[in-house]
Each structure stands twice: as structure tokens, then as C-alpha cells.
């Protein structure tokens, strides 16, 4: 159980929440995630990355985009409400060390999980280049926080409504082409973005980490639902990840698996809508 301490809407579909979770705040490290449910009896368990933590307040920050039933329900929680299930921190923490220069790429909601990793990389003494991008200006999150952390920051939007009109892969390529190319790339965002970021860095031989957010049930190494093909082998995001070598991940398969329930979800929304119409119509 975790109380909502603070809630802020960052854009049309994106929300930031601070949840009371002193143990998780104490133990969590950059790169880890939590699982939550909005209803303990019938709710789905969904993984969300920890964007920040405050040990003094005993809280963690999550940033999420409304994409389905559970994230919608969560967005309806307000300060003082109780999230019935919150478990974590899960997954292996990011390996942090002084690599030299690190380029971090965050796309859309992926900027949130990139934040604590960028923080830790900066603290470890790395030269930090950040590229953050979104479809359009109002979907861009954490601009101030990321600007503060970065030695260099590049902001882009797909539609050019803010910053540079470009996909994140364009500035990433330019950075890779520099005389002193980065020692490490970390890219977090939609699977397609991560796939193309990995393809961008591959010819330059830059080690590239991606953080995967697959479908999960238990998140503790029991069900195997989160498996992905990495270098031809089945790996489990919850206990082997969430970070993997982006050059070895089979993104196409991962994207297909992420869509496993898309048809069912659409159907269930339609059913619920019809149900609602029936109820209202009957009144």
C-alpha cells in the first residue's frame, strides 16, 4: 500500500506522482522499476520505472502515460489516495561507473526512467550529453531537470513545435560522428526508437544500453512472461534486465510480444463501452 503524496499532470496524458514508499526509496538504485496495481482484487500488475526517490520524505516518483485501463485508473488517483499494491524496487540496477562521456537518449515517457540514470552517471563523474525528444512540445517532460544535469543537451520534437525538428536518431548520429565519440550510449523510449538508436550507434561500435519495458505479471522471476530474445537466447526482463545490450536485442519480436493483447484490449474497451451504454440507456 502506498499513499499518493503529490500528483501533477505534466501533459495531456502524462502524470507525475510521488508515492509514500520509504523502503523502496531507501533501496532503489538507478534503472530499477516497481510494479503496482490500482485494485488488489481485479487489477492488472504493471511495471513502471522509478523516476526519482526522496529518502527524507520516504517517497518515490513515478511518471506514467495513460495508455490503458490501469494507467487510466492510476491517473484518477489524487493526493491522499492509497495505491493498494506497490512492490519494488525490481530489476537489476544500472551499472554506474566513470566511462568518460555518456550520451543518454530519452524519448517521450522514456525521459522519466532516463532521469535517475543520468543523475547517477553525472555523479560518477561522466561528461553527460542528453538528447530528449517527444512527438510534440506539450509531450516533452522533465526538460528543466535534464537541462540541469547535462553538460550538453539537445531537445527535439517530431513536429518541430519545440527545439530541433528531428527524430532523436539524427543528433545521436552527429554525436557518434564527433572526433571524440561517446564511450557509452543509454537509450530509453518507445521500442521502435530504441531499435533505431541501437542501429545508429552500431556502426560506430559504441556500447549501447536499452531499458526494456515488457509485459510482466509477477516481476520476480516466476512467470517468464517478460522474456525477450537477446543474442538469440531467452532473457527475462524482470531478473536479467531491464537493461540489455541494445545491439543484441531482437526488437521486432519484442514489439510483437508487446502487442499480444492489443486486440483483446480493444475488444474489452468496446464491451465495456457497450455495457455502459446499456446501463445508461436503461435509466
Amino acid at each position, binding site marked *: *500500500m502506498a499513499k499518493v503524496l503529490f500528483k501533477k499532470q505534466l501533459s495531456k496524458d502524462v502524470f507525475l506522482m510521488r508515492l509514500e514508499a520509504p523502503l523502496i526509496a531507501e533501496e532503489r538504485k538507478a534503472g530499477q522499476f516497481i510494479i503496482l496495481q490500482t485494485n488488489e482484487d481485479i487489477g492488472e*500488475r504493471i511495471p513502471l520505472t522509478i523516476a526519482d526517490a526522496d529518502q527524507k520524505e520516504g517517497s518515490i516518483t513515478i511518471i506514467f502515460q495513460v495508455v490503458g485501463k490501469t494507467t487510466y485508473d492510476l491517473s484518477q488517483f489524487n493526493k491522499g489516495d492509497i495505491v493498494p*499494491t506497490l*512492490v519494488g524496487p525490481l530489476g537489476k540496477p544500472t551499472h554506474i561507473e566513470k566511462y568518460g562521456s555518456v550520451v543518454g537518449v530519452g524519448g517521450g515517457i522514456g525521459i522519466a526512467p532516463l532521469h535517475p540514470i543520468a543523475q547517477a552517471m553525472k555523479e560518477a563523474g561522466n561528461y553527460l550529453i542528453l538528447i530528449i525528444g517527444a512527438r510534440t512540445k506539450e509531450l516533452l517532460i522533465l526538460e528543466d531537470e535534464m537541462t540541469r544535469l547535462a553538460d550538453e543537451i539537445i531537445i527535439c520534437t517530431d513536429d518541430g513545435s519545440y527545439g530541433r525538428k528531428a527524430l532523436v536518431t539524427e543528433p545521436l548520429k552527429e554525436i557518434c560522428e564527433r572526433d571524440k565519440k561517446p564511450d557509452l550510449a543509454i537509450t530509453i523510449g518507445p521500442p521502435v526508437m530504441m531499435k533505431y538508436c541501437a542501429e545508429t550507434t552500431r556502426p560506430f561500435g559504441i556500447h549501447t544500453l536499452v531499458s526494456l519495458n515488457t509485459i510482466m505479471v509477477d516481476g520476480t*522471476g516466476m512467470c517468464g512472461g517478460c522474456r525477450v530474445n537477446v543474442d538469440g537466447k531467452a532473457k527475462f526482463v524482470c*531478473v536479467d534486465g531491464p537493461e540489455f545490450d541494445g545491439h543484441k536485442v531482437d526488437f521486432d519480436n519484442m514489439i510483437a510480444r508487446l502487442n499480444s493483447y492489443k486486440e*483483446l484490449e480493444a475488444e474489452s474497451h468496446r464491451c465495456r463501452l457497450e455495457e455502459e451504454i446499456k446501463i445508461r440507456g436503461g435509466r
Partner: protein
Amino acid sequence: MSFKNKIELVNEARELLYKYLPVKDELKPKDRMTIPLQEMPSQDPIVRRSNLEEVALGYTEEQARLEAMRCLQCKNKPCIAGCPVAIDIPLFIQHIVNCDYQSAIDIIKKTNLLPSICGRVCPQEVQCQLPCTLGKSLKDVDKSVSIGRLERFVADWERNTGKVSIPEVKPETGKKVAIVGSGPAGLVVAADVRREGHDVTIFEAFHKLGGVTRYGIPEFRLPNYVIDQEIDTLQKMGVKIVTNYVVGRTRQLLDLMNKDGFSAIFIGTGAGLPMFMGIEGESLVGVFSANEYLTRANLMRAYERGVADTPIYKSKQVAVLGGGNVAMDAARMAVRLGAENVYVVYRRTEVEMPARKEEVAHAKEEGIEFHFLQNAKKIIGDETGKVKAMECLRYQLGEPDDSGRRRPVVIPNSEFIMEVDTIIVAIGNNSNPLISQTTPELKVNKWGNIIVDENQKTSIERIYAGGDIVLGAATVILAMGEGRRAAVSINELLKNEKE
């Protein structure tokens, strides 16, 4: 086996009971041998294909007393040696003959704290019922006394009276013991350690308690209210429970002792990551581990479509790979979720199947097709990455292997295609890596199972382990047996440092 409904079974039993009751104290072994084995009343197979309710309905009183009369009350009592927790089986059975169910349950509970679970899911035919003198005399293990059904009968009787006895707890010692995982092993340790007056806390990673009995074993085989009852008893004894707490992540294992003041820890985290076949196409959409499929259906209630938020795949043609109880559970769940055809694909024959006979029989009654001496070679997907078929190979049995079972040998060029849209892999589990990953001091074997000594103690002082995390995938009762041993060790450890 032709299906008889409960009323027919009860009427037959009642008639016989009246015949035998007046002479119950004079019955000779040869008389007892003539009493017919009492069949378990069960839900009509056609009806139960579309509900999640318990299949086996439990003996009626008449059936239980009659079945109890079949026990020869033999001198050497081989059944007790066959029971992993050594219940005094002939004695509790004698009390059933005499209608003294309270005494019967008291005897069982002396050594088995979860009788309503064990009575349902123990593989009695390879434990207590295997050496049964009656079964031996009748030259058929299936005709042994139905000890498990009788155990279930008295456990259910106690629950239905509404007066489940709460074990006595000794005065508080103030010593804290942490139990990691609320599966069968953990629950047993919690009860046994709490009885000595220690302050026991169970840490569970999930939002609900019971471990594999909740997420794995389906409602139709072990209803949730049975598990709830056992947990309620523990809570009434004063056992504390913390859910959504992953030891190894939310708290490091050793921190439980170093920071949180626990004097001893029991690790019962159960089986871990599901094994896959390692064949082409296994990551296609529509391939599931049995763990995932069952967890979605059971724990996450995806069976209740339209109620639960967790989705479950819609399948028409399902292949389940494997021949154990988990494979049976997954296949039977798929039927209940509306699959038109469910095939169990197993590379040996029915004789070698590790699943309980009763489960196999139930599965057959429910229309599941068994494909023996076949196995998957590769999984074929459509253009969107979804399963559309499975290429299989045929096998024949060769020489016995290390396990004593005849080894399946592939028949060359025997490939054929099976059209399926869903494949559920139920070929076992590896160990859970979470605690060993974050506690390098803890010694594990090459499969990742925690190494323990004969007292269930791990390589770290004050830390004990038991159940599937030690055994690999085993049974509820074996996990409980390990739990009992660990509890004795923990109680001994804490007693010795009293002064």
C-alpha cells in the same frame, strides 16, 4: 471409467454402510477386502468444462465411513512410513469408522497443519497409498485405502463446523523469525515456529498469499477458500504478514537480520523461471509458460473475462507440452477458458507421465486429447508473429535412463504439422534467481537451488531453506516436510540461546 453422479454414489454407499455397520467391530480382513472402493463424487464433466468450481466434491459421510472400514488396520502400518510427515493414518481412519471426526482431525493436525490442502493435492498413490497392505492384497495400488480422500473429508468436516481449532501458542519469547514466501513450506514453518512463542513475520512478494497454491494450482483443484482458511488460522495464532515485499530487492536478505532484528530466516521462495524447449519460434506470440498462463488465470483472475483487468489469450487450438500435474492444470484451464481443442503433447507414454492418475483421468473426461510419443520440433508463426502451427516429431521408447523411465528416442523423418494457435510449455522450472543473485554468500548448486544440510540450514548461519527453492520442482507435501524440519531446527536454535 464411466461417470456416476453423486446421488448414485451416495445411495450405493448408504446401502452398504447399513449392511456393515452392525458388524463393524467384527470385520475380518477378507470382509474388508470385499467392500468396494468409494469413488470420489465429482462435477459432471460436461458441466465443469465451463466453470472453475472444484471438480472433486468430497466424500459424503456414508462414503467416508465405508471407505474407512476398508482399512485393514494392519500391524506394520506401511502407510505411515509412506507419508512425508508421518501421520498416524490407521488411527485417524479408525476414528472415522466411529464417527469421531474431531479425534480424526486432531491426529492429522499433530503432524500436518494443512490437511485440507494435502487431502486435495498430495500424490497419495506414490506415498501413503503405495505400500498400503490392502492395495497389495488386491494387487492394485488404485484399490488401496483412499487415505487422501479421507484426510480431505475430515479437514472439510472441521471447516464446515466453523470451529477450526487454533493451535496453542506458548508465551512470547520476543525473538523474531522471518519467513520468505507464503507457499506451503513457509506456512508450515510459520505455524510451527509461532507455536513456540516466537514473533513470526511472513514476507510475500505477491499481493496475495499462498504461493503456488494460489497462483499455480487452479481453483477447480484447490479452491481459494481453502487457502484463505489456512492463512486465517495463522493470523489468529498471531503470525504477522507483509505482502508486496520482495526479499532480496525491497530488503536484502542479510539486512533482515542486520538491520531489522530478525534472529532467524526461512527461505521458501519456491520454483523460479520456467524452462523452455529452446526450439525455433518459442518467442512467438501465443507461446506461454504454464506459470504465466496459470498465474494470469488464477491469481490475476483473468478467467473472469470482463471482470478482471488482466487479459488472457483467446485460444481455439491449444497444445500443452509436458506430462506433469502443471501440464494437466494448464490444459484443463485452457478448456475452461473456451478452447475448442486442447492437446497434451508428451514424448513418452501414459505410463511414464509424472502427473497424478486422477488428474489425467479428469483431463480425459473433460475432452483433452493426449498425444503420446510426440514432441515439438519447432513453432511456426504467421506474418504478424503469432503462432499458427507446430512441427512435431514422433518418438519410440528406448532403454531406461537415469530416472528409470524408458528414454524417448526420436523416429527419423517422422515430422508432421499440428495446427495450433497457442502453445503452453509445462516442462518444469529453473530455480528462482532473485535471492541468490543479491546474496552471493548463499551457496547454491549448479541449477541455482539453495544447498542445505540435513537440518535445512543453508551456508549462512541462522538462515534455513526448504521447498522447491531447495528441491527443484516438487510437491506441496514434500515442501511441507522440509518446512517442518526447518522449523524444528529454528526452534532448537532459538531455544538454546534463551539464557
